[in-house]
């Protein structure tokens, strides 16, 4: 059975995977929680598969091992119509990254990734993204309005209006959008 190493150095609940995968019969190696401990474990315990949070800073440690050591697992990331590849893509978007030793079929990862995926709340991520995009749009409109106010009322050119907003942002140590918000709300107040 495949030897699986879990890297648990972030807040994501990858640790829960251990029992689930052990129940499926995988040979679970002792977990690693720091990048400094990774090289020794990969060299001595020879995992076939490493599962790690996509957002883990320790991923670059694994990348170095993949380059320097032929027997170390390599990152799996391919995109095609193949259903396994779709699963890998889904895993990456959900925040699960997999490393696999060369020579093993990517399809052997499928059951592991399915179990991992089930443990990640993708919904949360998507909702957050949507909220951020809406904020961006609102900021943009606000800055345009502030710029037009300066151009109309103070007879500034567009670059001058920008420069004025930027200078104020820097002087006050706030974002440009915040300066725009202040200007627009003052104007609304004073009419």
């Amino acid at each position: 059975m495949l030897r699986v190493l879990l890297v648990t150095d972030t807040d994501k609940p990858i640790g829960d995977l251990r029992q689930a995968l052990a129940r499926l019969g995988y040979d679970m190696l002792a977990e690693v929680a720091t990048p400094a401990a990774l090289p020794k474990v990969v060299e001595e315990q020879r995992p076939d598969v490493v599962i790690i949070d996509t957002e883990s800073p320790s991923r670059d440690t694994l990348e170095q091992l993949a380059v320097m050591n032929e027997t170390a697992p390599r990152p799996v990331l391919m995109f095609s119509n193949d259903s396994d590849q779709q699963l890998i893509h889904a895993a990456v978007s959900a925040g699960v990254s997999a490393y696999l030793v060369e020579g093993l079929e990517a399809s052997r990862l499928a059951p592991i990734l399915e179990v991992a995926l089930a443990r990640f709340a993708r919904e949360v991520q998507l909702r957050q993204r949507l909220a951020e995009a809406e904020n961006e749009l609102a900021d943009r409109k606000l800055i345009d309005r502030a710029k037009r106010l300066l151009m109309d009322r103070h007879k500034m050119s567009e670059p001058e209006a920008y420069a004025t907003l930027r200078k104020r942002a820097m002087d006050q140590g706030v974002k440009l959008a915040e300066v725009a918000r202040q200007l627009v709300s003052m104007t609304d107040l004073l009419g």
Partner: protein
Amino acid sequence: MNTPKAASHSAADKPEKTHIRLGFVALSDAAPLAAAKILEFGHSHGLTLELCRQASWAAVRDKLLSGEIDAAHALYGLVYGVQLGIGGPQGDMAVLMVLNRNGQAITLSNPLAEAFNQSGNLKQALASLGRPPVFAQTFPTGTHAMWLYYWLAAQGVHPLRDIRSIVIPPPQMVDALAEGQLDGLCVGEPWNAVAEARQAGRTVAVTSEIWPNHPEKVLASRRDFVALYPNTARALVQTMLEACRWLDSPAHRADISTWLAAPELIGVPRELIAPRLLGDYDVVQFPKRPLPVSFFDEGAVNYPRPSDGLWFLTQYRRWGLLSGDHDDAAIASAISQTTMYREAAALADVRVPDEIRADTLIDGRIWDGRDPAACLDGFAVRA
């Protein structure tokens, strides 16, 4: 003047894609992205930028390849590593422009730094440890691996045989150094400054000593991003050129340090970011005056010169990361988006420097990209 020109594009030049997700890693040289976003330099070119902090270079690569981010602040060498598929997935990549030069450093543990400063001989200082020294860098094909290897080799230390080279994420490098797990490291700022402030080690070399004004971070994307959205790519380069120009003023660098200190950008106190971002080093420590990190320098920084890329390919061959019959010059010229860059530079009124640049590196060798094969043959220390 630092004010952007008024938008004057025709409908045909309009960006095809207006919302751009930009990846970056928590480093001082992410300053152009921070400035571009905080001051919204993109708006006058029809772009809205969204900054997406990444915890690792591997994540930058994966998200560029999957399309989750459109472009990124990336190690020069990462782009070439992905193009060649070294140790991971392969994809056709593009360098849109260079974002900065200089600004990285090598730190040694306190005892090693002392031994090195006393004898002035690195090989001797390393031998005093009585075991193989451990050095950390940031990514296998990245810039820091290459600066570290070049620096060691120039002093007769073989980077693949005489030391153990590992990758540790920059914030943890300082911890690992403090705990005695590392003897040295090569990384971008502010992490060398953080190591000194925590008295975990001392900066013994800055990367401008290894290669004066070396290329460092680039604005990278997949090549099909440039093909599918040519106007967006050009507008993005114009935007970033304006941000880089803005950063040339010391007052602005002082301003941006305050921003970079924020938890959502670097999350390190401003006092540890500002001095080295402003080029303020304790010069007594260094044999040659460190060149400060440069973001613009009248456009000398930003041209994506194919010979810069060729340098990395030549070093990969030197260290056995690349072998076989590739046309290195063709790879570098396909990655470097020189035509698009020239258009953007003209629109932003930025001078494009000469195609050929010759620099003398730390080992006395001259690199001008004209004969990489001869350059490679000349290295005594190699894989």
